[in-house]
């Protein structure tokens, strides 16, 4: 672009403002999709200025997405400055800048050569593994992205922070077909090695095998075992119940069930395996890991739930200022503490039938009530007659209560935004309807 971060930072340093931050992201993205290969190059620049206007704090943002031929940094800063005067909210103290986190989020194997070549190579591997497993791809979309990011921010006492980093990301979306059946694959990773395409495809083919003999899931109450692909469906999955509760603004206004220092659910602290969950935006190869946030706020690991007791909440600049605490970058990737038993033991029908859910079709979670409603795509019932595959059926219940009392496997994996147990078992509270 004609304008760049340095020009804007020079201009921002001349202004009398409460605080400011600037970010530039240079993005190179390659896509391989069926008969298409594509490269996108983009530069995105954003600045934010905070003004103390007596009647409150004014915040003005400017984001430049693409090149429109401007090189007038002063005019861009003026625009943010003027807008801050139009949009004024209650005042809050500016937190001090804090050191960036050290994170590993750039895969060196993705950094050389055009990204569409890398995407084509990954798509080729996907096609080979799928064909070998007997379920060739019907459609596949692979995107490889690398970014160079720079953030400069200034807060109280004119203390300035400058951080730069590089990051990579891969997204794979595919449909594998075998005969008249198909199954979807969706995986996101920071590095190629974490895609684990061969093992994921083996799991999908096993699920296709199950679907060949599956019967409709009988309605009823079960002990439910959710595998990682199910409990972390679409990113946070059922753990969204905790993420939604740990919203600083909702907690501050007393609108959340989550009360720091109190159990997240009745008996949450006294069950056999109390739940411990942290947000870790510094996790190596975490999808949401970063040294700092886009506003220069520090990213930190913090405990959300400690042995069943609600602890931390996500704090952006504003909420941290109001709480007179250090910002933590908000809730990012989750780390769920392991349990004591093996995943194989969790599916044993000890007191009644166990419904094992391998994957879901969809999941809806209502944060204010914690109600989770999810459709079973592939599963199995374990009872005295053995194991039989099932499909369909809608699972419902209070996700917060269910997670608070869940048994967790000792084996860990990373699925979506959750680094946690490969399976969890919920003995009561979930019901299956047709």
């Amino acid at each position, binding site marked *: *672009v004609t304008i760049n971060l340095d020009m804007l930072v020079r201009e921002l340093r001349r202004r009398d403002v409460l605080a400011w931050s600037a970010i530039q992201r240079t993005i190179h993205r390659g*896509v391989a999709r069926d*008969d*298409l*290969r*594509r*490269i*996108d*190059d*983009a*530069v995105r620049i*954003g600045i*934010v200025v905070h003004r103390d206007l007596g009647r409150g704090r004014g*915040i*003005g*943002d*400017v984001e*430049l*997405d*693409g*090149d*429109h*031929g*401007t090189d007038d940094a002063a*005019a861009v800063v003026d*625009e*943010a400055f003027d*807008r801050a005067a*139009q*949009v*004024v*909210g*209650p005042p809050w103290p500016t937190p001090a800048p804090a050191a960036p986190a050290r994170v590993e989020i750039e895969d060196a194997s993705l950094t050389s050569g055009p990204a569409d070549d890398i995407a084509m190579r990954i798509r080729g591997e996907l096609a080979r593994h799928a064909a070998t497993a007997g379920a060739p791809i*019907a*459609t596949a979309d692979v995107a490889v992205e690398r970014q160079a990011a720079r953030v400069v921010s200034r807060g109280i006492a004119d203390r300035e922070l400058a951080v730069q980093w590089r990051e990579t990301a891969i997204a794979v979306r595919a*449909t594998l*077909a075998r005969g*008249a*059946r*198909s199954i979807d694959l969706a995986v996101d990773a920071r590095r190629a090695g974490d895609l684990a395409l061969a093992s994921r495809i083996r799991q999908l083919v096993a699920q296709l095998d199950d679907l060949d003999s599956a019967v409709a899931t009988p309605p009823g109450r079960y002990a439910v075992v959710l595998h990682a692909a199910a409990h972390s469906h679409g990113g946070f999955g059922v753990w969204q119940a905790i993420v*939604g509760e740990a919203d600083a*603004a*909702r907690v501050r*206004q007393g*609108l959340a069930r989550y009360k720091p220092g109190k159990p997240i659910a009745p008996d949450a602290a006294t069950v056999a395996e109390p739940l411990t969950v942290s947000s870790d935006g510094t996790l190596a190869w975490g999808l949401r890991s970063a040294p700092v946030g886009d506003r220069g706020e520090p990213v930190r690991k913090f405990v959300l739930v400690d042995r069943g007791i609600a602890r931390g909440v996500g704090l*952006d*600049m*504003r909420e941290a200022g109001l709480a007179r605490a250090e910002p933590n970058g908000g809730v990012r990737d989750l780390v769920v503490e392991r349990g004591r038993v093996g995943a194989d033991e969790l599916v044993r029908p000890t007191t009644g039938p166990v419904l094992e859910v391998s994957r879901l079709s969809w999941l*809806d979670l*209502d*944060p*204010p*009530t914690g*109600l989770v*409603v999810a*459709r079973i795509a592939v599963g199995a019932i374990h009872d005295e007659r053995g194991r039989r595959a099932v499909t*369909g059926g809608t699972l*419902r219940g209070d996700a917060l209560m269910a997670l608070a009392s869940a048994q967790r496997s000792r084996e860990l994996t990373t699925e979506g935004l959750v680094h946690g147990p490969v399976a969890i078992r919920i003995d009561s509270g979930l*019901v299956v*309807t047709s």
Partner: protein
Amino acid sequence: VHDRREILAAAGASALLAALGCRGGGAKRVERPTPITGEDVRAWLRRAVAELMTDYASVAAHAVSSRRIAAGIDLRGRGLVRDRHAAVALRVVDRSGAIVERASGELTPDGVAKLVASLRRSHGPGAAVRFGTPARDRTIGVDREPEGIPDSTWLRMVDDLDARVAAVSTSRVVYRGAWIDRDDATVWHVAPGVDREQRLIRGRIGVVMVTWSGNHPMIGAADRGTAGGPDPAALSDADLEHAARGALELVTPGAVPAGPAVVVLTPPVVARLADAGLAAMMTSTAWTRPDLAARAHAGKAIAATSVTMTADPSPTRYGGYHFDDGGVAGARAPIVEAGVLRAPIAAAVRDGHAGVARPQIGHLTWSPGTISETALMGGVADGWVIDGVRAVRVDPVTWRVTIDAARARRIHKGNPTGHVHADVEVSGTVPALLGAITGASSNTDVIAIRDGDGLADARWRSLEVPWIVTRADLAPRAGGGG
């Protein structure tokens, strides 16, 4: 982006501004006026196509310059978005049939030249290409230039809307918000024999109110969307009263009885059903699934014979256009004709008009019935009006649809009984729901849907639908049935 679930997720915590992208109560994505003109862009694209035609069997150039203005107000304050996006994508097909695209945010002569250089295999002058007569399609309904309206005016417009919402709310309302959203995109497409330019202006306006009923929030919302603007999109007093009713009406204790029932679906519910259950299933990409239920029903009856749905991407519609993002003129196509399912749609729609193309139905029209909604409900002996749709989920393999709705109001002998149950679920397969339709209203509503947070990832679509009466499984959302 204005998903009511998101608003619900942080009711009372400024979710509306966050949903609008107004982080921290501020404004974002502002840009200086662009110096480029349509003639400039067309010249750059024609030159690019001519040069690339020396190396490739097929070449097309596509570009967009777009702006977005959104303003919102809620308990935390006011916010304003001014977003600007520019991009250019060159598409070539080599002799083997492989498609290669190069795209950039640099919509400048140098930016286009760099993309050409990355694709060229030979040197020398470009081929002699006939582009035909340049065409600039008529812009629909620009009453005032949105970009020329100052921030203060946009903020005053949401203040005025908020004042109207305040007038219909009570002290029970714990959260309220109002928003206005305008997209303004100029799109160019140049290829041998084609040189087109279109400007698409799309506007939406909406309000939301939240109260607490027991331990769960009750949400009332209303929104409208239209092509053109900025003025045509407006909320009537009746719309605001409908939103207030949704938030304020008292809920009957106990859960809705579970089981098969006659249901009257309001237009927002019908639109989400048609969007997720039909439009999303009737694209050429969706049909690559061998087990897609819709594919197995092609040419077969899936609905009552009174049901006809048509893809109608007229530029007078919020989701319509003069030409799609592959440069093909928009054309009507039947999706369901007198109850029979027809062929999928392949119209190319790109994220933000320049991203990767995916097929999409820009606007879907569901043919209306012959009686008013009042007469329609008057004919229901015993049933439920389903209102306040929050989410619609569809399993593409079984074609089973699950509608999560805020409330069900009972009707007996054509009249409301006053019973209102919160948090209900309507389910069934799409063919079962459509096959059981016994009536549709003569009046219709247009529902506008905008996906994406900014402009680069935005996708627009709309549906015009009537009220319908059908049979489905009804159950409390928390369980107890179907």
